[in-house]
């Protein structure tokens, strides 16, 4: 029987739900489970309801499920707001000081008092109680605390022991192996992928759900030898990064939709001046300020078309942390080689969720590297000599005058309005799109899952793949997903969808942006399942929606 367990941890903002969720995930990790963790919280610092759902399974999981097997309730809301997630065997562990419910109550205040521990350690008592109810050996709990709570592990453990001893194993979780995965968030996967791809500088202005990428890289700047800057606004972010790239650095920037709005003039400049740049955009619910801490997929068309004028761009929407790592490294290389903006399009679910990454399976990425001037002949930044791109030199290179320009320019980089030169340079820039499309044939740009002969196929993009893949399995459907969205993998996608009698797009937006993009490429979507309340689709929700649609 497949092992698949879910744990809900809930409390109010400021209760430390994120760290409690992380410890629970590590407990499952240490008994051999693949995990994923979904965090949901309102846009405030104190008060309001926060919760995490940690799922562990004997196979890789990228999405949480509606129903939970264990509940760790720090407050009464956790019981009352989530009662729909409980089944008859759900084990409830709660703080009996504030919660009245059936299940295993322990007095957090008593546990703290007896160990003379500060209130902030209260969660440890409940985590201990959960571990006991799930039959996780004390040695494992002790090891996880020592590894992942570097400050005050001892006293936290004593508090945890109080909880552990008050509860008996009601619903033991089977140990399924000794293998431990690395638990990282989607944004951390992106960060590590960027570093793998040669990142030298990260420039960003805080905006949920991209901020944790900034925080992670700032915290680890010394470790990875990178420069991290948080300037005055997103306009400065992109222009500063273009300056860094022009001078020979390998920058990336990150934001969400609102910040990306401010970056579009810089994006167009990157296109015209042919300056490599990687841009991470993590979507949240829009329009405008929208739901800052909730998810969405409503920026696809914006990302594909942002910026005045026409220029090639690379857009990739990873659906898993593993893909996020690999494609972030690839994006660094593509931006550098083709001298184009490369955009990594994520969303809150992927960025802020935590996933199991297997460190022994790091992807091997074939890097092309930048095309550099060899020092022969007079250097012209935009030389059109028949090669895929003009050779790059950086200021400070002896004998090279490196002129880049936002105006239409000639091969030397000097402004021109000559019709023939303008047309030639436009062709030179646009040619890169064709070369890029050709290069993409070496990558898995379209992911397929499920039976080839399924009459009904689901098509989706980004993190919603988790729900799509599981729903497709359950209903015997085929799930197809373009990972690269520009250049659009039309031929490969058409092959993947061959034989479909009914095509259903599944998206977290209100208009069906992927469906519209598919139509543009001659692929007709018959039904759209759209979700636009900021909450990610779970497999159960999607199965229900598909059944409603007659599947």
């Amino acid at each position, binding site marked *: 029987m497949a092992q698949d367990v879910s744990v809900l941890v809930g409390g109010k903002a400021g209760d430390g739900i994120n760290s409690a969720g992380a410890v629970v995930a590590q407990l499952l990790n240490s008994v051999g489970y693949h995990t994923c963790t979904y965090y949901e919280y309102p846009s405030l610092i104190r008060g309001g309801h926060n919760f995490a759902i940690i799922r562990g399974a004997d196979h890789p999981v990228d999405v949480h499920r509606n129903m939970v097997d264990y509940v760790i309730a720090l407050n009464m809301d956790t019981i009352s707001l989530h009662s729909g997630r409980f089944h008859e065997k759900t084990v409830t562990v709660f703080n009996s000081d504030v919660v009245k419910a059936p299940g295993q109550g322990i007095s957090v205040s008593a546990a703290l008092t007896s160990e003379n521990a500060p209130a902030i350690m209260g969660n440890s008592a409940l985590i201990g109680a959960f571990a006991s109810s799930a039959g996780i050996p004390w040695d494992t709990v002790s090891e996880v605390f020592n590894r992942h709570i570097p400050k005050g592990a001892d006293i936290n453990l004593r508090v945890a022991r109080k909880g552990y001893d008050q509860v008996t194993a009601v619903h033991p979780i089977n140990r399924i192996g000794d293998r431990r995965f690395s638990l990282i968030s989607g944004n951390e996967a992106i960060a590590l992928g960027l*570093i793998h791809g040669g990142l030298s500088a990260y420039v960003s202005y805080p905006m949920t759900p991209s901020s944790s990428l900034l925080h992670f890289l700032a915290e680890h700047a010394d470790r990875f030898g990178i*420069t991290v*800057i948080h300037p005055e606004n997103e306009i400065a972010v992109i222009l500063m990064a273009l*300056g*860094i790239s022009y*001078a020979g650095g390998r920058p990336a920037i990150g934001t969400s939709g609102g910040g990306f709005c401010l970056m579009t003039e810089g994006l167009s400049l990157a296109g015209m001046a042919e300056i490599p740049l990687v841009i991470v955009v993590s979507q949240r619910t829009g329009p405008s300020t929208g739901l800052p801490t909730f998810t969405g997929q409503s920026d696809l068309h914006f990302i594909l078309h942002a910026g005045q004028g026409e220029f090639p761009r690379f857009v990739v929407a990873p659906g898993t942390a593993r893909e996020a790592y690999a494609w972030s490294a690839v994006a660094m290389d593509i931006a550098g080689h083709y001298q184009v903006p490369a955009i990594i399009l994520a969303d809150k679910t992927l960025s802020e969720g935590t996933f199991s990454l297997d460190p022994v399976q790091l992807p091997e990425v074939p890097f092309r590297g930048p095309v550099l001037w060899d020092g022969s002949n007079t250097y012209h930044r935009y030389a059109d000599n028949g090669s895929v791109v003009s050779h790059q030199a950086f200021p400070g*290179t002896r004998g090279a*005058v*490196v002129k880049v*320009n936002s105006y239409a320019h000639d091969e030397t980089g000097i402004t021109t309005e000559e019709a023939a030169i303008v047309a030639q340079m436009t062709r030179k820039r646009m040619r890169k799109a064709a070369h890029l499309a050709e290069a993409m044939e070496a990558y898995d740009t379209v992911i397929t899952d499920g039976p080839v002969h399924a009459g009904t196929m689901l098509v989706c993009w980004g993190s919603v793949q988790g729900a799509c893949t599981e729903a497709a399995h359950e209903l015997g459907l085929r799930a197809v997903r373009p990972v690269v969205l520009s250049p659009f993998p039309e031929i490969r996608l058409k092959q993947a969808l061959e034989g479909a009698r009914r095509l259903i797009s599944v998206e977290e937006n209100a208009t069906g942006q992927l469906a519209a993009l598919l139509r543009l490429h001659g692929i007709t979507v018959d039904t759209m399942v759209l979700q636009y309340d900021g909450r990610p689709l779970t497999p159960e929700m999607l199965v229900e929606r598909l059944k409603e649609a007659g599947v």
Partner: protein
Amino acid sequence: MTGRHLITDAQNTWCPGCGNFSIQHTLKNVLTDLEQEGEDLDQIVLVSGIGCHAKIADYLDINSFYSIHGRAIPVASGIKLANRDLKVICCVGDGDAYAEGLDHLIFAAKRNIDITVIVHNNRVYGLTTGQYTPTSPHGFKGKSTPMGTLEYPLNPLELMLASGGTYIARGYTQKRDQLKSLIRGAIDHKGFAFVDVLQICATFFNMTSQYNPRVYPLQEYDRSDAGIACEKVREWDYNSDAPIALGLFYQRSALTFDEQFRHQSLHGKERQILIEEFLATRQ
């Protein structure tokens, strides 16, 4: 590259009598001096915004980043952060740096990043054919304010002093020798150097007859005294008929933003080992 011409073949399209000629000529002379003193001009980068001033990027045969309106300063900051060996000179306009990109100007001063900002301040939009800018006098009649502006100009020197600039000067395109020493001083200054250059717009706002009788060179005083500098800076508010002091108002030495970043870039294998080590901490 040595003994080079420094001027490209691009056709010059500034109006006859334009103050930009003076600034370009002065900058060229500064560069020539630097080269004669042994500086490698390949280590110089010019960044411009958009406007009449910005054409200087096409005209000077040195590394250049012809950026977009208001955004030269963040570009210049990025260049300096990526390669501290480069001397980065930013030529910007008054509409460019005081309107569209004011935030970047203030923050560059606040950070004391080691770049030089030369403002071609003709107090009018030239390339868009004559609208008021943040330094146009009150009542300025331009194409967007035919009845005269309703707002007073800002005093960019006072703003820079308040923002943390460590080299604050004002020059005038008709005082070339002084302008040359101010620009040279700005380039030599370690930290954020700001030179507001009063410049004639021959077509839309020729202030020659207003400037010539009013300008005078600043007298000696302790240039690191912000109090005195503030008094001097406030003498003329870009609106009144007060005398117009020219010269270096303020200078102090301070740690620069860029020198506080010391990261050595790692190569591929080192990066992968570090990534694997990091991932192990999350097991």
